[in-house]
């Protein structure tokens, strides 16, 4: 299964994503943001990092990179697109997902492992998981507080588009309705703040990320 991991200037989890995906059986490669075409691929990953130094707003400049036109076309054509952390921010900035990621409520960067609850199994990314299942995944961000107006939040919940929520009392950033990850209307695009690629090998202390990514691999196969 082929995966394309987009490298923007300032991305810093791109190599991590490539490593984890390859470790789990994908065939992943990096694609530079200046490319206007994507290689043939079964999955696009927008990795974590600080694209363009978070200048203007997180993800705002990367969302306007040449490669994003191709990413949008791929999403429309049915290729799954996974945005992790800064990648989630790029997805909201590019309009592929609604809402925005604001500064953490306590105004500080936070790096820790949180408990996530699978809120919906309707998308290709969560189909292999069980609703209500808990995953322990690392977070590391300063701008992870999911925000959208009430109508949008109601719609996301009503349409089963909240993929992950932070478990009770484990919301690290003040996200509205404890939202940690959402999908688009087709279930083809997922943005999430936690890092599954950081929990893909036992030696790093957790494998719940592998559970999610291997599940995705299975579904895609």
């Amino acid at each position: 299964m082929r995966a394309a991991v987009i490298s923007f200037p300032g991305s810093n989890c791109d190599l991590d994503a490539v490593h984890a995906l390859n470790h789990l059986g994908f065939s992943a490669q990096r694609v530079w943001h200046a490319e206007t075409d994507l290689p043939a691929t079964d999955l696009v990953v927008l990795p974590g990092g600080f694209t363009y130094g978070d200048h203007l707003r997180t993800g705002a400049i990367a969302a306007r990179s040449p490669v994003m036109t191709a990413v949008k076309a791929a999403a429309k054509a049915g290729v799954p697109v996974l945005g992790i952390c800064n990648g989630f921010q790029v997805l909201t900035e590019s309009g592929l997902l609604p809402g925005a990621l604001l500064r953490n409520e306590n105004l500080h960067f936070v790096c820790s492992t949180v408990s996530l609850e699978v809120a919906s199994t309707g998308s290709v990314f969560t189909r292999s998981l069980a609703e209500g299942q808990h995953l322990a995944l690392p977070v590391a961000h300063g701008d992870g507080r999911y925000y959208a107006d009430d109508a949008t939040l109601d719609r996301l919940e009503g349409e089963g588009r909240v993929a992950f929520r932070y478990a009770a009392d484990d919301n690290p950033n003040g996200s509205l309705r404890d939202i940690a990850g959402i999908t688009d209307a087709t279930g083809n695009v997922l943005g999430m703040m936690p890092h599954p690629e950081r929990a893909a090998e036992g030696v790093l202390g957790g494998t719940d990320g592998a559970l999610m990514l291997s599940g995705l691999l299975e579904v895609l196969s």
Partner: protein
Amino acid sequence: MSLRTRAHEFGLTGAEWDEAVRREGRDLNALEAAIVGAMWSEHCSYKNSRPLFGAFPTTGPQVLQGPGENAGVVDIGQGYALAFKVESHNHPSAVEPVQGAATGVGGILRDIFAMGARPFAVLNSLRLGDIESERTRFLLRGIVEGISHYGNAVGVPTVGGEITFHASYSENPLVNVMALGLMRHEDLATGTLGETGNTVIYVGSKTGRDGTGGAVFSSAELTGDSGADRPAVQVGDPFMENLLMNATLEAISAGLVAGVQDMGAAGLLSSTSEMAFRGGLGVDIDLGLVPTRESGMQPWELVLSESQERMILVPVPGREQELFDLLARWELDVADIGTVASHGRYRLHWQGELVCDLDVKLLNEAPTQTREGVEDPAITALRERDLSGVPVPEGLAGTLHRLLANPTIASKRAVYERFDHQVMTNTVALPGAADAAVLRVKGTNLGVAAAIDCNPRHVWLDPRAGAAGAVAESARNVACVGATPLAITDNLNFGDPRRQDVYYQMQQAVLGIAEAARALDTPVTGGNVSLNNQYLSEGLNVAILPTPTIGMVGVLPDVNRRAGMAAPGGEAHVYLLGSGTPVLGGSEYLATVHGLEAGAPPQPDLDAEKAVIGAILRLIRDGLTTTAHDCADGGLAVALAEVAIASGRGMQVELPGADRPDTLLFGESHSRIVTVVSADQAEAAEAVLDSLGVTWRRIGSMAADTLAIRHEGRELLSTAVSDLEASFAGPIPDALAGVPQA
């Protein structure tokens, strides 16, 4: 008319001016005077400390690059090498903590990737004043914010370190940052210019006026007016650093680079003149070609600016265009600013004129200073003080709680949660979970461990024993995770070297480091010196405690055979390895509970240290234990409490030895390690320990939820682990709360 009368304005003494004139055979112009002043500052020349370094062991089969380059490099096997170095950003952090700390991280990372190694871990050693003071809180918040802002964005994990508090650092905090980088042997790069005729390339941020004269500033003492020096503090841009790092490493790996160096202290000047010096070459630079971000910059500003995120690259001849194309792809500013020459001169050109023409050797060989050190008799008296009259406190459980809540000992979790400690997906031991950071090496079974240590109070009371002890402790910490200690980098933080008592501390500390490094086979591969760490206030010269910080690296042949602080579940026994005898002198207990900083601190016994390191490594590698923790600040009782907290379980322990109960519980010593072994492996572990001839004792067993410590049948203390955990949470979260104000 000669500028000699103004020598001090250039950071030179009259004698130094005369020496420069004598060597050059003519008078200096103002630009040349500023250049000599910067290169002869302590920060660039180590003129006060270099003569002491002859004592250091610097070679060994593991050392691929010793002192003198941007960083030291050691072999870790399977074709991999580790570049590592520690550096201070003390004075900038005292004046502007956010940017001071941030640029400290940036500078040390550039030293690492200039060696061709990809930075993959950062540790820091932070020393601050009384945690109750507003200034300390301001500095703590700012320094943590700076490291977080920079390290997280650049994408290198901050995996460990230490944070301690003592009033002597109130005005002059210490920010020592250690970085590690990983590379294949064949990618080792050097800070040289290659051959005559080569091009000198400037890459990275444009040059501004920030940090102009920073090398002189960082070598000067702080005064009440130091706030006015704020323009001398640089501003960091981690985004640019990330691009520069990726581009430089890609260029080195593609074989396009003949020489590379970071523009650090004294910027363009020190980088290019040091590179010329290493190869016995000269260089011609046209300052008019330096990219600038401000108009009207003068030659002295261009050459001395410490604008961040700038590198010098020398392309392999014939491959210049490939290098330019690669750098352009990373969207970096590039300029061809000069040419390598055989003349051995440092020549700067400006608007068609030769404005500086100095001997490269003169710039790099500052006249050194040796002095006579004399111990302050007040310190001698404190060390020799009789402590037998110190009362044993009532309620030893309460004393343990007090020590755990002491900010130096208490949990630093609130700080580490601000740092991305997992990016790059190599971090095996999370900060605070083990005595040293552990990283895996992708594609191999290898692990790398690193620790950074110093007990400044021990050094203050006995510089030689204290500094040797810092090396011993750092080796022990690395061994406690299962790594063989390999080599050290040191950051020598002291006061004013012109003071005889301070010079004595330096001399003795260097001897102590050298002695321990030799005994433990961990050569010194480089480091940093930070002097004049003191504060002048109303005529009082307040020096910091002498702080020779030791950064140790080690290798785990199999990262799956490692240990941390947490004990296994099930029936398990607690052991104390090593022969160290605890003493009250210089202990955290004596300072915290009795307000007394006195007595002879523990003396390291380096043979015993080697024995205990060998023993714990053997137990871990034979799969007989996954728990190891050394006894440091707060003694055995604190070490046991920390294991209990990490395990979420209690312990029943009977203390060995014959001494007053507070000494047995809280006295400090070297060469002691607590380990926990599952009951079904106890017999095998004990047989191994017996065969090694190391001192060991089974002191107790893991228990439900209470830590109970007895001695000679009498209970000394008993307390719930959940209460210990509450005390250990300590004052750091509160001190860190709020947003740093510039």
